[in-house]
Structures are given as structure tokens and as C-alpha cells.
């Protein structure tokens, strides 16, 4: 069985999409000869030509805005914004147009647009290279927001995102780009909107997405040694949010801890806590806990592991929740 890195899996998903549908376009800063600063688009320009895969000037609002016009002309744009921190200049085009265009045109002009953004922290990056931008997109009505946590699922989710008729913001956890996973690259399996349990347990439910899923699994391992068996839920998509899975899990374990890299206030943890309370109030044995970054800007490399949720912090939160 072949082993895949997340970068390799994403690259294959783009290649397969370009091959499958001649209307698919891949563009962004440095996606051409260079293959992207993370090599996710490696070799695609050579294979599909400069009309299908091309560099753009350094203009994020322009990149997002061009997606609108290209979609109106019947193309399927898959755009890359180079880093989380550089996706912000495009926010106006994403919020004001990509998210609203289908509604504005009563469904006559859908926006089958995918915006890929290498995101999140943990790579000892410079300022603006470790941001967790999901809240800005999740709160924006009209968008779907997808976050893979492993190579095989990255292939599946990116393929499904490109097929999706609605606009998808696809956030790639940079810190997992080079992790490896064995198996077949296939779009079969759980769709966008279905969370998946990566570990079962009755003691507490750990809810996460992206790079923090790995830390949750580590924490679950540690806690298992203490006799606390945790279920680990990988959300996979933040919009749609799998509230059924969240409710069911909370009803089963009565305890939930949400983990993410974004700052606490109005990070995904807030929505998940609120939804779990709405879905499973009577079953809750303890308040839903949030293990997140503090409400301060992303720090320099030498402090980032103090900023991001640590395995210890996750374990401590679970212990408190179980002991509650």
C-alpha cells in the first residue's frame, strides 16, 4: 500500500480534478513553476499548461474577485491564498461576494469556488504565518469550511470540495503537511458534513479538527493509561457542522472537551459548546471545556508551543471534566 504525505495527497487531488474536469482552474501566487511555497501544486503547470494552472500577481482581493467572474463564465476556480495571514486582504470579496452571490442571483449564479489556504500554526513561522482564520469564514453565511487532519482524508475532502456546487474555504494544516499515511487515495467515504470518530471511549469526548486532532489522539493515549477512555471526534468540516454526531457523542459520554489552535473567544469551541448544550443538555455531566489558544496574537516561534494547546493541557482539561 502506498504511503502519502498530506502535500502529496492534496497535489494528487488537484491533479485528478484538473484531469477530470476541463473547466477546473488552479491559480494563485507562486503556484506555477515553483509549485507553491509548500509544493502542493508541484508539476501541475507542466502537466496541464499555463492556461489551466497559473501564477497571479500578489493581489489576494484580486484572486478572490476573479473567482467570482470566472465562476460566472462557467469555470471552476481552485485558488490558493499563500498563507492564513495573507488571506485577510481577500475577506471583502469572500464575505461580500463569494458568500452572497448565489443568494443575490436567486441561485442563477452559483459559486463553485474553492479557496485553499495553508493555515494554522506550529511551524515556527514568522508573524502572520500561524493564524487560525476559521472563525471569519465559519460565521460568514454562504460558505462551507473544510479542514482535513490526515493525508488520505485531505485527498477525499479536497476532491469533494472541488465537486461541491457551493463555495468552500479549504484550510490546510501546514504543520501536518509532511505527515504520512498509508492507504488508497479515494473520494469514497464520509462526505463533507460528517464528523468521524478516530477513537472510541466512554469517558469523555474530545472534539477537534486539523492539526489538533493528532494532539487529541496523543492525549487520549496518555489518558487511557490512567483508565480514562476518550472518544476522539474529527469534525472534518466546520460548515456544515455535524451537530448530530456532537449531540450523540455528548449524550453517550456526557462529557466533552473541544480543542483548537484559534484564540478562545468566538473560536469554534464556542459554537461547539453551545450546540452540545442545545443538543444534549440533559445528558451533560460537566460543562463543555475549551482548550484553546489565549486571546492574544500568535506569538513568535520560541513561544508558540506555550500558546498552542498542549497534550498536557488537553489531559488536564479532560481530568477536570471527568472529575467534575
Amino acid at each position, binding site marked *: 500500500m502506498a504511503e502519502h504525505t498530506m502535500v502529496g495527497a492534496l497535489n494528487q487531488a488537484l491533479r485528478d480534478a484538473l484531469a477530470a474536469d476541463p473547466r477546473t*482552474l488552479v491559480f494563485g501566487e507562486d503556484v506555477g513553476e515553483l509549485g507553491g511555497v509548500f509544493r502542493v501544486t508541484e508539476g501541475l503547470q507542466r502537466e496541464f499548461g499555463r*492556461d489551466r494552472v497559473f501564477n*497571479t*500577481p500578489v*493581489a489576494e*482581493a*484580486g484572486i478572490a*474577485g*476573479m*473567482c*467570482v*467572474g*470566472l*465562476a*460566472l*463564465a*462557467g*469555470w471552476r*476556480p481552485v485558488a490558493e491564498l499563500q498563507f492564513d495571514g495573507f488571506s485577510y*486582504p481577500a475577506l*471583502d*470579496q469572500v464575505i*461580500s*461576494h463569494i458568500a*452572497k*452571490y*448565489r*443568494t*443575490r*442571483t*436567486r*441561485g*442563477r*449564479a*452559483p459559486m463553485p469556488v474553492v479557496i485553499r489556504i495553508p493555515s494554522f500554526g506550529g511551524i515556527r513561522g514568522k508573524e502572520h504565518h500561524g493564524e487560525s482564520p476559521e472563525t471569519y469564514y465559519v460565521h460568514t*453565511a*454562504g460558505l*462551507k469550511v473544510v479542514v482535513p487532519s490526515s493525508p488520505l482524508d485531505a485527498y477525499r475532502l479536497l476532491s469533494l470540495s472541488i465537486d*461541491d*456546487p*457551493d463555495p468552500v474555504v479549504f484550510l490546510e494544516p501546514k504543520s501536518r503537511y509532511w505527515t504520512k499515511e498509508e492507504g488508497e487515495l479515494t473520494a469514497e467515504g464520509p462526505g463533507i*458534513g460528517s464528523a468521524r470518530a478516530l477513537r472510541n471511549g466512554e469517558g469523555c469526548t474530545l472534539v477537534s479538527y486539523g492539526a489538533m486532532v493528532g494532539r487529541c489522539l496523543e492525549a487520549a493515549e496518555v489518558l487511557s493509561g490512567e483508565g480514562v477512555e476518550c472518544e476522539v471526534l474529527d469534525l472534518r468540516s466546520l*460548515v*456544515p*457542522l455535524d*451537530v*448530530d454526531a456532537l449531540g450523540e457523542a455528548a449524550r453517550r459520554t456526557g462529557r466533552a472537551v473541544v480543542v483548537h489552535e484559534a484564540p478562545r473567544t468566538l473560536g469554534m469551541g464556542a459554537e461547539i459548546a453551545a450546540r452540545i448544550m442545545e443538543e444534549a443538555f440533559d445528558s451533560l455531566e460537566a460543562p463543555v471545556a475549551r482548550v484553546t489558544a489565549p486571546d492574544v496574537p500568535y506569538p513568535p516561534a520560541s513561544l508558540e508551543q506555550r500558546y498552542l494547546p498542549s497534550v498536557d493541557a488537553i489531559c488536564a482539561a479532560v481530568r477536570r471534566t471527568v472529575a467534575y
Partner: protein
Amino acid sequence: MTTRQHMHEEPFLQLIAPDGSPVDDVDVELSTEELRELLRLMVRARRLDRECMALQRQGELTVYPPFEGQEAAQVGSAFALGPDDFVFPSFRELAAAVTRGVDVIEYLQYHRGTWHGGAYDPVSSRFAPLCVPVATQIVHAVGWGFGAKLDGHAACALAYFGDGSTSEGDFHEGANLAAVFEAPVVLFCQNNGWAISVPLEEQVAAPIVRRAEGYGFPGVRVDGNDVLAVYRATREAADRARSGGGPTLIEAITYRIGPHSTADDPTRYRTGDEVEAWRGRDPIERFRRFLVGAGIASEDFATGCEAEAETWVAEVRAHVIAMLPPPEDDLFAFAFERPPSTLLREREGRSGG
């Protein structure tokens, strides 16, 4: 006065003088029928604009942004486009919509407050939905134009925007992307001298048309109240775009005779003299005199246009007043093609109770 200063700072293309006399070779290769049609369209558009002002005052429309004074800029440019070309309007281009044959009733759903962006089909109309965040539509036009180019399809996109919109980053990103991708796009700036209350000289420090050279494509300055000059400049730019010549920036010097919108009080920031001076350059009166003087149309034809506009607008008015709010479920009907389950639940909850 600003716009006049700027207007005279450098030459601009003018074929017909304000008094209606030809100042240059006025042959723009339009048939007598087509020339008359230009007048007909301008008269219709103005009559409709005035009706919309009235409808708003009567509470039948929400805030309305009138275009009186800009008829030649909009009709002349829209008339120059081909059936496959695609218009990306801002929010004041009702005259262009009329010229393009957009369903006016559906368009006015926007101002009626029954549907954002207007309810017409943008794809079959070749007219994008109304776009409120200024300059953002310029980048959409570049994307569409580049898409048409990739399709090897001989069509161009025309983006309308105002003088104030040129201060936005999106104007720049769009212009530079159009230049780099050699996209078939016409960037059509209606310089009406004001951005709400901000005069041109507080908006830019040089004539807008000069920007074009910095991007590497042609810029043309035209008398925006001269419908033939606007037509010729747009026609040339569109032909060049469709035949692979890339983008053109057109700066049409015109003036907004009315308020920025029905919510605006222009007496707070500009003088009546300025407005009067511009009434003297009225685009419709100018073209009427030209047509009559050149024996292309009779006075009767002109009066006929007004009568015809009157009946047409009466119908439009009736339809507008009859427009009902959409059903509540339309709130939910269009946001997604594959809606999240949480949204479906909420939607059912509403229809349930």
C-alpha cells in the same frame, strides 16, 4: 469648479458641442435608425429615472440613486457592446440596463426592496447583479473577461464605476490583473465629479485617465455628455478587447444632476450654480439638437420618444406598485445548493411555526 478644471486640464474626445453642433467627424458608423434609437433610449431612461424618484418619494421604492445627467455616458457605452459582451454595473447604471434590454421590472425589485441585486437572470441578461461595494465589480469583470479569453470566445466585459471608486484597492488590483492577463475588459469610469459629498479634487490629485499608462494599456478621456463620443470610444475599446488587444480605461466626464440618492441633500456640499452649469451641457438636449440639425430626426420624432416613454413608464410603474414581498422561505432558498443540515432544520422550524 473641480470637474470643469479637470475637464479642461487636458483634451477629451468630443464629437458634438453642448449646443448640438458637430465639432468633429461625427460618423460613428451607425444607421439613422440606430442614431434615433440612442435618443429614444436616453429619453426613456431619464423618464424612468424621474419616475423612480417619484416612486421613492411616494414610499413605493427604498432609497434610490438617480443617474440624471449621465444618460449619454451609460447609453452610449452600453449601446456599443455586442450581445455576448458582459456588463458589470455598480448601483447607478439603470440607463445601461435599459439599453442592454435587462428586464426593468426585475431590476427594480432591487430598489423595491424585494430582492438584492435585482431579480433578473444575470447570465442570460449579460448583466451582473447590482454591486454596492464600490470597485469590487471591476475584479469580477476581469475574471469574466479572462474566462472568456480562456474559452477563445470573442467577447469582452465592461465594468462601470465612478470617480470615487478609483480610490479603492480593488480598482487597482483589477486594472493590474487585466493588464497582466491581457483580459478583454473595458474599465468605464463615469466621472461625475462627486463621490457622495467628496469632490474630485479630494479624491484624486491627477486626471483618472492618466492611470492607464501606468498599467500599460490605453486610456481615453471622453465627454461623457456626448453620446456619440462615448459610443465611439467604447466601441473602439470593446473591439480592441475582443480582438486580443487587452484592456482600456475610459474616463467619461459627466455630472450627477440629482442627489447621490434620495437620502442625500446635495445642497450641503455643492452650489446651485455648479448644477446649473451642468444642466447647460444636458446630454439629451444636445443630441436632440444634433439629430434635428443634421436632419436625422424630426422634432416630432423627439416628442414621439417622450410620449412613448410616458406610456412605457406608466406600465413599469404599475408593475412596481404591484410587486409583492417574496415568501419568507426565500430567506433560505438560495444560500446553498447543498444546505447544511442545521440550516434545513432552521428552515423547517420556520415553515412549521
